[in-house]
């Protein structure tokens, strides 16, 4: 079942054309990688999908509902979770509290003035942390975590709302290579068991071709190849882009 449909997505920053008419779709349970050199427009694409930026043109629908023109917080409630390329967590809170924050938000209890926060949804937060392998560090302040661990916390936060679409911008940056494979394998398992459409960017081609169901190749804001890993791997333009050979 198709979850996300993107049509003719276009965005420029002043003079820089970051995305030019990009169209693709992602299905439920599918793990799709966006690859492309730095500056290709991957992060821009994610920022448009979660509403952090408004597109100049184009349409984005999730389960048939248009996401364009909505604020990130509303898009989140429609089922889009994300992690950031530059990790963004709440530094003054513990790992567990970070996840609890998302759960409290899901339950729409953000403004509750008296409930004791540390006790709210603690068990569910721990379950999420367990899934991403961060349970042992649940009580540590987020500000003290290693970069790779922060990425995992972000994943747990993104999962808190049982997303339909999960966006992961370079989720393995800062991790050791065996860790990376494990994280993407985890994302893959989540996609299959929970029926989440997963879109991620990744620089490690081994991981991309080993785990993704499909690969989108962005170059200078244009989608130059789309397809199964085997197909994209032998695509002439992709070869040219990555190997410099014709």
């Amino acid at each position, binding site marked *: 079942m198709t979850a996300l449909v993107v049509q003719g997505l276009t965005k420029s920053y002043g003079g820089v054309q970051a995305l030019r008419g990009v169209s693709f779709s992602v299905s439920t349970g599918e793990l799709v990688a966006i690859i492309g050199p730095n500056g290709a427009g991957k992060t821009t694409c994610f920022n448009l999908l979660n509403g952090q930026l408004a597109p100049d043109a184009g349409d984005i629908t999730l389960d048939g509902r248009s996401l364009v023109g909505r604020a990130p*917080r509303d898009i989140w409630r429609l089922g889009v979770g994300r992690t950031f390329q530059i990790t963004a967590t*709440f530094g*003054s809170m513990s790992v567990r509290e970070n996840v609890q924050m*998302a759960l409290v938000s899901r339950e729409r209890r953000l*403004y509750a003035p008296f409930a004791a926060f540390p006790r709210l949804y603690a068990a569910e937060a721990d379950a999420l942390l367990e899934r991403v392998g961060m349970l042992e560090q649940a009580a540590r302040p987020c500000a003290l975590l290693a970069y790779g661990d922060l990425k995992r916390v972000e994943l747990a936060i993104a999962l808190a709302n049982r997303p339909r679409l999960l966006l992961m911008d370079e989720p393995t940056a800062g991790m050791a290579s065996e860790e990376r494979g494990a994280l993407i394998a985890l994302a893959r398992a989540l996609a299959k068991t929970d029926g989440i459409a997963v879109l991620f960017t990744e620089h490690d081609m081994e991981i991309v071709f080993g785990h993704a169901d499909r690969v989108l190749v962005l170059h200078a804001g244009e989608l130059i190849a789309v397809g199964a890993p085997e197909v994209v791997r032998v695509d002439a333009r992709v070869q040219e882009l990555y190997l410099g050979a014709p």
Partner: protein
Amino acid sequence: MSGSALLLQFLNGLAGANSLFLVAAGLSLIFGVSRIVNFAHGSLYMLGMYVAVWLAPATGFWAAVLLAALIVAATGALVEIGVLRRLYQAPELLQLLATFALVLIVRDFALWAWGPQDMLGPRAPGFGDAVFIAGAAFPRYDLLLIALGPLVFVLLHALLTRTRWGTLVRAATEDREMAAALGVNQRWLFTGIFGLGALLAGAGGALAVPREPASLAVDLAAISDAFVVVVVGGLGSVPGAFLAALVIGEVKAFCIGYGYSEITLAVEFIVMAVVLVLRPWGLLGKPLPAPRGAAAVEPPLGRIDRKAALALACLAALLAGLPLAGDEYTLVLATDILVFALFAVSLHFIMGPGGLASFGHAAYLGLGAYGAALLLLRAHAPTEAALALAPLLALGGAALCGWFAVRLAGVYLAMLTLAFAQIVWSIAFQWDSVTGGSNGLIGVWPAPWLASKSAYYYLALLVCGIGIALLWRALGAPLGYTLRAGRDAPLRADAIGIDVRRVQWIGFAIAGTFAGIAGALYAFSKGSISPETLSVPRSVDALVMVLLGGVQTLTGPAWGAVLFVWLQDELAREVEYWRAAIGAVVLALVLVFPRGLAGYLKERFAR
């Protein structure tokens, strides 16, 4: 209004724009280069006025203007060398506080040197009479000012665009790191720009002498006017300051011309608020480059565990026993301490976890106090009703100011909250028929059952205790965590469904309401209320209390209030110029602990 009257109002506005421009241009230049918003700029203006009035009898008017400008310029340069130079790397809040400490010191200096009375200045020789324009008299001196504004603008513009020094100033304004990398001697550049800014402010003050008397209230009036001008024109832009000075000058002139002088500041505020919402960086300004480097990570907030709760319960029991042991004086002081503890905790609520440092929190204290007094005296409400309803006035004010405040950050936030507080103050100060003007309101005594000092102390203990407990509780509840989430990582907060502005707005309104509760209690405990309650120095008192105790601690601000009120009580009894003494303490704190007391202690004990 007839055509010629319109013309005269218009010319009046142009003349007023001159001093607005001189102050605002200096403020803007200094900010552009040093990224410091100099709260003391209005004080330099005031100093210019006093020095000119003081020198004029001896030297004649024109020489006095020149000397005043030079003396103020030297003062500005000295302040840069002695104080601000040490603070360029310090957190913004401390920079603002340090310049504010200077405000307190300069004001008490003026009080000491020239006394509390307004001082009328001489007329400008050769410009003392009126000319006739469209059949109406218009001061000749004002025509001179009208010509002077554009002249100064052109000179400044030439200085900035035609000289090497000006090029360096512009380079430093565009990109400080870049200018430093190019080998610009920053020290002298910064000292020079402070000197120039001060020169402009001093000249502006001296030139205003024939139009208005020198008085001790001029400093804050000038700085809040200048804030409005630079915000409207764009921080760091001299042409913006010029344009905005004309706009604001006209707004003022027409408000006064139509007989609405009381609402002048309110209209200014509306202009500023509209500009901030539509063009947050001002008419001719540019969006500020985001500060480089990672944002500071705030430490986790403390929590009240079982042990702390027990200790607080013991403290409460102890406090409940105070009337058995203490005399009346102690009870009054203790009531004050309780009231200000609630006040400080309410500011901390929005400033620490919320990340919005309000420079005008006393506005809500004052709204609560005036609300209570007005309900009692004008609506003849019973004490209980006055106490209960007055905080709603503070809630209204905080909701209004907060709506704009949550759209801003850093120095813009500081300027907006300060300007708002100054407006509330000026309403209280000027609206004689309702607020009693500068004398305030007297006879604000509580119902007989609360009349004794001990009964009132118990009421304060109960209300403040509950208020503080509620605020602390909220900080440990989702509301407090949501506030922290919005402060720690706004993008992340937005990406998990948090409406950051909304939660900050709610936080701001709550903080204002509790400050209003403190204010209402304060009014009845004193029996009278004056504009001083909501003056800007009072707002800074609150900031100092919070910083003394530690912004990122839970209970610290309450202890900060205890220490501050007690200290102030001691100082006020022993020292005549206690505001200046407080300013000196603040300066010392900021200079010795540029990372804040809490940060210092942490560093000390982390080793």
